[in-house]
């Protein structure tokens, strides 16, 4: 049987190389895409899977809620909560705190920088990372203990067998000698908890103010539970926990005030979930967008499905050609079962050749290949084998024409073409919309003149002399038009928020984002003024004092500029009506002198916060320097700015980046998604076209006689061409219509996640349909033209 199958495949290769090539190419491509994406998806879903009982190891996350702002989730929580957890929740098996810090590790003349985690001695009871050397029960019990990762041990000592060896640690200028009490085994899968070293918290660490106050972000707290039910029980009582322990008076700095539950909440996230969950969690793990991973899985499955449909389509279209072979085999005594096995065997053999191609395309996928080949081969072969093995030999041998399979087979083949193209068109619509949105996000109006601006990293000093020095140095750099310092810049990394209240009855607090600027900010960013004016140094009240002085200036009035969102949230009817209006922030009065358009420093996914901008002569809080330049190429300007920067901050080098560069992280996900959709639609359309081309080849063969009849009845080449193109393109058009609605629905729902988004248009659909029809028409044009030009007398003899 195997010999028969191989001989049959070889015969196909010799006599119908096009069919075999289309089949193998389609299957190979489909399997390769499926295998590569399956491996990638499996990787993404297997984060922390190697950590024992990771599903029941939970991280306590905090949520801060401010009026006028969306709640924000943080992976860090105040450590002040730690001791109460065990007492309030008896379901907890064990807990540990976890705070990563930069350490310098020294062993003689070998030194390395390490990302070390300070933990409690109970760490291994909670997160049972396997040890290559050492006992997890005692590894962190000594105050001077340190557990190294295998790589760190190797780098420091040249070996991982280093139990009992000592090394010197340097943390925040504090040097100490520590003894290696364990070496972590190399993780056998992807993990989010992979410190270079683990060490117990120093005894004095917990006395630091950030560990003794609610509202501070101290570090992670992990809990180990027994069951999902325990998680549910704890989660249900976390609000009560916050009320019980975080309440205090309005002036109590260590508490969250009288109603802590209104601004602070806790939640639990399992270690198995953090890789996807942390996408929008501040201080979380490096996360992946689950929807992107799921799209990858879908693309993989669809690529294989399309390849299988392609193979079935080609095989059934070709079955008529093999009818005579079946008939002869049956007259010679072959049973239906034997023929069925042969045809399925041939399908698996073709798939195996495709598998070899797939292997070449993704050499790492060997473990799954056999399984994929077998399943794909069966999926491709069963139906065509059933059709072929059912032919009645007497009928086939008596007939002068090959069996076409009838209208049922035609419908099936058209159905398969519809399914293939429906997926292809759906992906194409998504591609178009995602790429349009990505482009829109990069080119949208940001409310300021984005081109020609270069921005430094944080200025890590509050020394006013230094801040002024850098401002002057930048201002006098050739090519610089203007320079300014500000706390907020595109891709905000430092947010300062506070409450303001419009003066008047029944007005509520709103939570606003504060920015303070120095220098020629208006010239640098060119914010669009909607009403009033920008700051002017000739007005005394335009210059507000620094943060500290600000709160110590009761009764004083400072001029501020609002953005459009702040005007709206504060309840003003128009930007003009806000001008001159006083606002209260604690004991200080703010007078609105101008309203500017919203300056979008955040992603298009996020809404712009209400913002109040101050002008200050005092030192700013970790400001950035921004310059507007002109007449100089960007790279030369960057070099000049660096030359101006380095003498002022010799120990704190910076690199100047453009607005586009700083905000590019906002678009990476969408760009990546657009790229994925482009690849997916490209593959889907390619496989669908392979199928259509194969189908057109066989249809041309099968319908030559029909064309002869039509021409004998007076049809012109044009008539036949129109008919055949119509027949080929009708299922494609139907596929377009079928795909459009789900694709547009999915895209509508995806776009709703953006605060700023494009409008969906029927033009998207029309463009995709036209392009798809054009591609499909070009695919079948050659075959159709040949068919339409057939000489009628010869065509009538064709069978």
């Amino acid at each position: 049987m195997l010999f028969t199958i191989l001989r049959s495949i070889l015969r196909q290769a010799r006599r119908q190389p096009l069919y075999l090539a289309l089949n193998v190419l389609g299957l190979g491509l489909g399997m390769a895409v499926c295998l590569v994406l399956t491996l990638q998806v499996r990787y993404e879903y297997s984060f922390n899977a190697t950590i024992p009982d990771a599903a029941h190891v939970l991280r306590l996350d905090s949520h801060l809620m401010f009026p006028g702002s969306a709640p924000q989730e943080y992976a860090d929580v105040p450590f002040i909560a730690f001791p109460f957890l065990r007492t309030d929740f008896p379901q907890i098996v064990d807990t540990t705190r976890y705070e990563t810090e930069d350490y310098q590790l020294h062993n003689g003349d070998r030194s390395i920088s390490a990302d070390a985690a300070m933990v409690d001695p109970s760490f291994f009871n909670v997160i049972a990372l396997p040890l290559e050397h050492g006992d997890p029960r005692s590894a962190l019990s000594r105050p001077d203990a340190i557990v190294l990762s295998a790589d760190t041990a190797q780098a420091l000592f040249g070996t991982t067998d280093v139990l009992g060896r000592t090394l010197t640690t340097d943390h925040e200028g504090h040097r100490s000698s520590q003894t290696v009490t364990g070496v972590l085994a190399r993780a056998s899968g992807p993990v989010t908890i992979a410190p270079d070293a683990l060490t117990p918290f120093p005894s004095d660490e917990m006395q630091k103010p950030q560990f003794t106050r609610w509202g501070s972000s101290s570090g992670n707290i992990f809990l180990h539970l027994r069951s999902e039910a325990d998680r549910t029980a704890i989660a249900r009582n976390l609000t009560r926990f916050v009320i019980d322990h975080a309440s205090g008076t309005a002036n109590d700095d260590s508490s969250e005030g009288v109603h802590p539950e209104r601004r602070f909440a806790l939640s639990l996230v399992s270690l198995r979930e953090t890789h996807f969950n942390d996408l929008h969690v501040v201080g979380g793990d490096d996360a992946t967008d689950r929807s992107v991973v799921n799209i990858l899985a879908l693309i993989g499955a669809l690529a294989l499905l399309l390849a299988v449909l392609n193979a079935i389509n080609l095989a059934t279209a070709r079955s008529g050609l093999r009818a005579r072979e079946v008939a002869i085999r049956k007259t010679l005594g072959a049973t239906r079962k034997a023929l069925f096995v042969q045809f399925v065997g041939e399908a698996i053999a073709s798939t195996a050749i495709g598998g070899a191609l797939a292997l070449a395309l993704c050499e790492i996928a060997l473990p799954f290949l056999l399984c994929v080949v077998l399943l794909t081969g069966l999926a491709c072969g069963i139906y065509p084998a059933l059709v072929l093995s059912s032919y009645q030999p007497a009928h086939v041998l008596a007939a002068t024409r090959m069996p076409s399979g009838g209208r049922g087979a035609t419908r099936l083949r058209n159905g398969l073409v519809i399914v293939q193209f429906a997926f292809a068109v759906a992906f194409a619509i998504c591609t178009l919309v995602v790429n349009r949105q990505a482009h829109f996000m990069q080119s949208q109006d940001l409310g300021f003149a984005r081109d020609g601006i270069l921005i430094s990293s944080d200025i890590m000093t509050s020394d006013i002399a230094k801040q002024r020095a850098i401002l002057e140095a930048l201002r006098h750099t050739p090519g610089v038009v203007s320079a300014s310092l500000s706390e907020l810049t595109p891709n905000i990394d430092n947010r300062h928020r506070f409450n303001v209240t419009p003066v008047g009855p029944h007005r509520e607090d709103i939570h606003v984002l504060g920015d303070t600027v120095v220098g020629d900010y208006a010239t640098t960013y060119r914010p669009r003024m909607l009403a009033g004016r920008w700051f002017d140094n000739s007005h005394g009240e335009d210059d507000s004092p620094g943060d500290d002085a600000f709160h110590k200036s009761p009764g004083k009035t400072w001029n501020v500029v609002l953005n459009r969102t702040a005007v709206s949230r504060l309840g003003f009817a128009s930007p003009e009506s806000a001008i001159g209006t006083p606002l209260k922030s604690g004991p200080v009065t703010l007078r609105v002198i101008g309203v500017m358009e919203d300056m979008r420093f955040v992603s298009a996914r996020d809404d712009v916060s209400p913002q109040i901008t101050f002008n200050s002569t005092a030192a700013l809080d970790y400001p950035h320097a921004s310059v507007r330049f002109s007449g100089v190429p960007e790279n030369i300007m960057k070099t000049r700015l660096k030359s101006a920067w380095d003498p002022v901050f010799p120990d704190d080098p910076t690199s100047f980046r453009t607005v586009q560069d700083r905000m590019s992280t906002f678009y990476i996900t969408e760009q990546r998604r657009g790229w994925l959709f482009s690849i997916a639609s490209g593959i889907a359309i390619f496989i669908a076209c392979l199928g259509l081309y194969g189908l057109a080849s066989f249809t041309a063969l099968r319908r030559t006689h029909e064309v002869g009849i039509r021409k004998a009845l007076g049809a012109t080449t044009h008539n036949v061409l129109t008919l055949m193109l119509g027949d080929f393109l009708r299922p494609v058009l139907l596929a377009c219509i079928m795909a459009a609605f789900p694709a547009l629905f999915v895209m509508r729902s995806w776009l709703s996640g953006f605060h700023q988004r494009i409008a969906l248009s029927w033009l998207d659909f029309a463009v995709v349909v036209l392009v798809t029809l054009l591609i499909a028409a070009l695919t079948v044009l050659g075959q159709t033209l040949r068919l339409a030009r057939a000489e009628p007398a010869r065509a009538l003899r064709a069978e």
Partner: protein
Amino acid sequence: MLIELSHIQRLYRSDEVETTALHDIELQIEKGEFVAIMGPSGCGKSTLLNILGTIDRPTGGSYRFGEHELTAMNEAELAKFRREHLGYVFQSFNLIDELTIEENIELALIYRNMPKAERQSRVSHAMDHVGIAHRARHYPSQLSGGQQQRAAIARAIVGEPSLILADEPTGNLDTENGAQVMDILQRLNDEGATIIMVTHSPSHADLARRRIDMLDGQVVVSVRNAI
């Protein structure tokens, strides 16, 4: 004179061989004639019929049809000529499997851009004429050979052609069905249709008004039957 063939020649050339299918054919056919062409296999009967039906082109000579010189026409003009003047009946019926009998018959009119209502009326009339109306909605595979051939005749006459070409119309039929088909052709001829039929059956050839015998690509005998 409806048809006038003069020095018609048909050569088939391949890389190595040149085959003469028709050699210097001279033939005239009057309007209203019923001509049977006979001869052994390979003598050129079907080639002659194909050339008469303009689905094959002669490699030499002249073919006049009424006022038209067909050898000078291009492909589009020939297609227009076929749909306006010719009706075909084939040995293997040549109905399109995917279309119903009604649709198969209508096909000949669709290429004339005839209004739907007129097409339906003509199709209905043609089906009645050959006794196939009760099978209008059936597919060819659901009909017997005789019924399929009657449908094919209906398709040939539905356009009221000047000439009906029949290529062994009874070749795939049993005696009874063959006789029925010949009856229909005779009736059509009596009603004024010009018919040229290729046949292997001497008895069917005798039913025509004229009989032409061919041998090795040439007309060797042309006799009028006494009817």
